[in-house]
């Protein structure tokens, strides 16, 4: 079993799935089932990797990685096809396959034209995002990092609404501008490492040993940081996100909020800090400022939103600010908190987007002011909405709280002032959440909207997510155990 390159299979499989779907252009029903089957297989494989997470690491793997694959690729440039999975990647992978499944289900009835193409894009996106989460070679990482923009671009652009073209292009150009500078930095560290050791390689483990001149280090790190900050997104690089979210279809929003944003944080954890520990330390105040600014500013702005999706989008910015704060603190606690919050936010926000999408598909509007009094009309949906809204507001016992609490606890030790300010963000988060809940669920109905309660399919989707919310909230133990070793190693502990 160990001889099978599972990680490569994980990445390649959705790609094959996408190719399989191409001939099914006009048989949309079949295409849906094929896509679903494919994602389920993917989910099973991911679960299998989970089951071996305790196994002893294969030879050659960096510490902490229990699955490791390394193939020759472009040898002349020192590029190898290196994949590895540790607890952090495992978590991200699980989230990716799960959310892709959710996306497929969400799109099942809501995408009416070019359905097959839609599923192809979802599968492509899954493949590339998995690639980002599994790569241990900087070149490979970058490859996936940029590739994932393409399916996302089409998802927003083709199936979006409103100013979807503007948003799609904005999304693409924004994120690409950042990552191109990162490409330069990647090449930079590759060259520096090569000139020092004589071995030109993009291997992460090797590059970590590079000795960097402080100034050079800071510039290289700044390029990485910029790229990640745009993906994150951190204030003031966030303006693409509300637009992209607002105009994306539901599945696009879910993928965007649940997965794409996480790649930024993941990149910072996996590459940014380990590669440039000193520069990262020097620039910590910057990151902290952006994080805290994001928390306050975005949460504040979220309050003023008139469009449900935009509100949730701004809330994403706020939550990701917490993630950034945890990373900036770089203590074991805060870091695990950040990772947990990434997962938690992925689930919660996806659920909120799914819900918003469900509401909008019924009422054909995203305006908050059109709704009201949903609780009596669609009690099941409302109940779920309340649950996810509260999770998003950081109610203890639900998943976001675990992450936020760990972040705040861990960060307070090293970033006292920032953490204090971040606490204010909790209030602001509650303020916009209860506003949303009140205007949607409570009060009198403001416009007569045609509404039916959740279909069984929607209930399935929401239940999957709700279980995630509650289980992580009440029993985060397995998750935290999964993270303990990699986080320990990342923060400088002996393996």
């Amino acid at each position, binding site marked *: 079993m160990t001889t099978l390159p599972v990680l490569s299979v994980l990445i390649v499989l959705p790609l094959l799935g996408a190719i399989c779907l191409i001939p099914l252009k006009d048989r949309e029903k079949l295409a849906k089932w094929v896509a679903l089957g494919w994602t389920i297989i993917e989910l099973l494989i991911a679960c299998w990797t989970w089951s071996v997470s305790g196994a002893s690491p294969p030879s050659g793997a960096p510490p902490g990685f229990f699955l490791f694959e390394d193939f020759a690729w472009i040898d*002349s440039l020192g590029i190898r096809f290196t994949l590895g999975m540790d607890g952090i990647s495992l978590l991200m992978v699980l989230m990716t396959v799960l959310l892709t499944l959710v996306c497929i289900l969400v799109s099942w009835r809501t995408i009416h034209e070019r359905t097959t193409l839609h599923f192809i894009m979802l599968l492509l996106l899954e493949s590339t995002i998995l690639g980002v989460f599994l790569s241990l070679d900087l070149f490979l990482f970058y490859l996936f990092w940029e590739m994932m923009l*393409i399916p996302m*671009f089409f998802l927003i*652009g083709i199936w979006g609404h409103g100013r979807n*073209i503007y948003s799609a292009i904005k999304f693409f*150009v924004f994120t*690409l501008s950042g990552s*191109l*500078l990162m490409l330069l930095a990647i090449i*930079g560290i590759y060259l520096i490492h090569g000139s020092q050791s004589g071995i030109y390689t993009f291997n992460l483990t090797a590059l970590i040993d590079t000795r960097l001149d402080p100034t050079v280090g800071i510039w290289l790190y700044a390029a990485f940081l910029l790229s990640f900050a745009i993906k994150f997104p951190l204030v003031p690089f966030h303006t693409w996100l509300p637009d992209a979210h607002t105009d994306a279809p539901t599945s696009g929003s879910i993928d965007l909020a649940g997965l794409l944003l996480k790649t930024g944080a993941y990149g910072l954890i996996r590459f940014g800090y380990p590669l440039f520990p000193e520069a990262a330390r020097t620039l910590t105040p910057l990151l902290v400022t952006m994080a805290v600014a994001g928390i306050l500013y975005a949460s504040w702005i979220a309050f003023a939103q008139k469009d449900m999706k935009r509100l949730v989008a701004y809330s994403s910015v706020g939550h990701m600010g917490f993630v950034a704060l945890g990373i900036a603190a770089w203590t074991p606690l805060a870091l695990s908190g950040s990772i947990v919050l990434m997962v938690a936010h992925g689930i919660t926000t996806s659920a909120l987007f799914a819900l918003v999408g469900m509401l909008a598909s019924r009422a054909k509007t995203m305006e908050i002011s059109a709704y009201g009094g949903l609780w009596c009309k669609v009690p099941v949906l409302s109940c779920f909405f309340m649950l996810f809204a509260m999770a998003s507001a950081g109610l203890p016992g639900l998943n976001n709280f675990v992450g936020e609490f760990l972040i705040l606890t861990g960060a307070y030790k090293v970033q006292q002032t920032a953490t204090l300010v971040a606490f204010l963000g909790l209030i602001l988060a509650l303020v916009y959440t209860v506003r949303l809940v009140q205007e949607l669920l409570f009060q009198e109905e403001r416009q007569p909207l045609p509404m039916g309660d959740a279909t069984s399919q929607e209930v399935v989707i929401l239940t999957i997510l709700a279980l995630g919310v509650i289980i992580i909230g009440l029993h985060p133990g397995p998750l935290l155990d999964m993270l303990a070793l990699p986080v320990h190693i990342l923060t400088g502990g002996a393996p």
Partner: protein
Amino acid sequence: MTLADISIALPLLILASGALLTLLGGALTHNGAVGTLIAVTTAIAAGLWSLQTQAVLIAPTLGLSAGGLTRLFTAFFAFMSAAVLVLSSRYNAYRDIRGEEYPATILFTTFGMVALAAATNLMIIFLGLEVMTFGFYILVAMDREQGVSSEAGLKYLLLGAVSAAFLAFGIALLYCVAGTLAISAVMQQTLAFGPPNPVAVAGWACVLVGIAFKLSLVPAHLWTPDVYDAAPAPVVAFLSGASKGAAVLLLLLLLPQAGDLAILRVPLFALALLSMLLGNLAALRQSRVRRMLAYSSIAQMGYVALALLSHRGDGFQAAAFYAIAYGIMSLAAFGAIGVLEGNGCGPNLDDYRGRGYSHPLAAGVLAVALFALAGIPPTIGFTGKFLIFAAALRAGEITLAIIGILTAAVSVYYYLRVVTALYLQRSENAERERISVFEIAVLGHSIALILLLGLFPSQLLGFLRMQLP
């Protein structure tokens, strides 16, 4: 004339005789298809021959070389011309370009490029370049149904002639300094270490002007959009792909032989900088797709200039790689545009709306080509850009690398505009896509190359590394 001579000169001979045969065949049968058939066969034969021939460096008596670079580019030019010929057949019928002159001229142009590739002295280089350009003068103006195409021809011709004069004058000055036309000797003596020779420097200034025109670098770029706009689409593919490749090849034949290239740094720097900036900016708001791609081509050549500038960091390899990459990308892009135009698509961006669904094959190829041009992985465009920027950083050209990468980020916008029009916008036209098997084959091959060479560039890179140490 030994056997080795013939073996080396065979591609040239094949192409020349093929061109004549094409003319002859066309004249005898009055059927354009015969000409095309002969021409394609010839081109493929030349390409295949050059691929399999032995690596003999210099032909004993003819003064031609058959080094690795020569053979690679010969094959590249030959296959490119075959592809262009295939793409032309339907397009020309649509545009009503008849006659055997067209395929013959394509072969003639290829003949010039191949001669250039095999050159060991400046005279052959100059003549090869001029023959190639001369062929393009004719090709650009071929589309007589469109009045503007002869206007484009005139513009290209006048500027081309002036730049040829500069080139000739420059080579003459170099000759005065070196006393010979052999490349290595000229390069060694005119760009020697130590204080530069003023006359040689004057010569290089003139040569640079000439080459800047061929590469359409700013400020000698202004013909590019006009020619791209008016010429038949396959010709643009050829012009953009192969002729730029030939110009890059020229520099690759010359520059690595030089002693000290320091003196050329600043002019190249300026050319690269201006081209990257102007090309990418001017393309942003273009409403005509071909002009947009013309400006894009200006910018892309800016990147090549950056690569050449970074010769100390394996820039020559990067430049060679990118020249080939760009050739394939433009073949795909303009090939697809040609097919679309053959299906009745107008020149404006708005005419491309919704073509992604009504013409999935051509539009798909165009989209992939555009993503490749934008440098998005996993395409050859990305790998090429990666190599260029790696070379630039290695050579210490950090400022230019940063500017380059920023302009590349800007450039994404206009490439996306086309993709947007293709897939994101709707239109009512519901006509069926008309595309021949041959076109599919050519476009399919180019796409396969874009992806495969993007993902697995090892072999090509290794080869280039051997040729351009």
